[in-house]
């Protein structure tokens, strides 16, 4: 159990490093070594740590625990083939973590990050549409059933390409340095993570690494099917590198543009669902 969590954390952090490396190479910079994020997390964990005097102390600390907890839970949901709706729930609950992080510190920059996180609630809608499309195809929201369905009918990536595209957008909107990462834009310092330093930041990095791992793994599992771990990791890496390319060549959008794009994608997907509903009867 816990060893798999550690493994996922390690891979997730490595993926973050690769992400930075690819972005740097695309932009013609040398970039940091790919284990940079692992070192980063370790560095943060060795830094002196306290709680800001202005913060709501309990919440400030609790949010870090919740961040790691929900994504470890999500990993087990994926592995045990639980409910896809539950995975969607974890994704939404991550929003609460983002709010809590920003609000609890009392810092105005954190608060701005939290506000942007509220505004970007539109990033959840494509995921709901994806869930709906998958349900239309497989008639079940259990991840095990979905995997079984794909073994019979072929990968959903081909059957339901728009849903895969929407899920891709969802993962993109949670990537660092991406066009949608408005909550950690540099004009508001580090957004909602501004006041979380030292051990707290290391904890958050662990949570986010798990998040990246879970989201990429979910993409592979839901749209390509159950694979041996090595192959799955390879595909996850490919998806990640494609995401890094997108992040490298697109500028960060303004908060309202992100909402517009995400809503438009959701709208397109809803039309697709209606058409599907009519076609499939």
């Amino acid at each position: 159990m816990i060893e798999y969590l550690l493994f996922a954390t390690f891979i997730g952090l490595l993926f973050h490093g690769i992400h930075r490396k690819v972005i740097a190479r695309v932009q013609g910079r040398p970039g940091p070594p790919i284990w940079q994020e692992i070192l980063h997390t370790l560095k943060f964990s060795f830094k002196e740590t306290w709680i800001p005097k202005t913060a709501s102390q309990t919440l400030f600390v609790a949010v870090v625990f919740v961040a790691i907890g929900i994504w470890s839970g999500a990993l087990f949901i994926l592995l045990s083939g639980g409910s896809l709706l539950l995975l969607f729930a974890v994704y939404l609950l991550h929003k609460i973590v983002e709010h809590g992080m920003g609000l609890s510190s009392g810092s105005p920059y954190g608060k701005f990050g939290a506000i942007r996180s509220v505004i970007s609630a539109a990033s959840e809608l494509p995921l709901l549409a994806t869930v709906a499309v998958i349900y239309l195809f497989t008639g079940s929201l259990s991840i095990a059933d979905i995997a079984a369905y794909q073994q019979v009918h072929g990968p959903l990536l081909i059957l339901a390409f728009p849903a895969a595209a929407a899920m891709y957008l969802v993962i993109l909107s949670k990537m660092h340095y991406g066009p949608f990462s408005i909550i950690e834009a540099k004009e508001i310092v580090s957004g909602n993570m501004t006041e979380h330093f030292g051990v707290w930041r290391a904890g958050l990095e662990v949570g986010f690494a798990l998040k990246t791992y879970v989201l990429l793994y979910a993409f592979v599992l839901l749209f390509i099917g159950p694979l041996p771990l090595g192959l799955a990791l390879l595909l996850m890496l490919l998806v990640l590198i494609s995401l890094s390319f997108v992040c490298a060549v697109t500028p960060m959008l303004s908060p309202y543009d992100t909402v517009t794009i995400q809503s438009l994608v959701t709208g397109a997907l809803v039309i697709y669902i209606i058409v599907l509903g009519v076609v499939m009867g």
Partner: protein
Amino acid sequence: MKKQTALIAGLAAGGIGVAAGILAAAGYLPVWAAEILAVVTFPAFVIFIALWWNAKSGEEDIPFIGY
């Protein structure tokens, strides 16, 4: 927090998590229960171990804080 407390908490959390995994693998514990235990103990393990190794042991220099 005392260095000792953090270490004990971290090791206890890690220990429970690992024990749950082993018990589940051996069939003494249902898998879902082990998973829940892992979810609860993993954050505590990460945070407390990190708090343990960055806690002061009491012999450091006083850092320069005046500008």
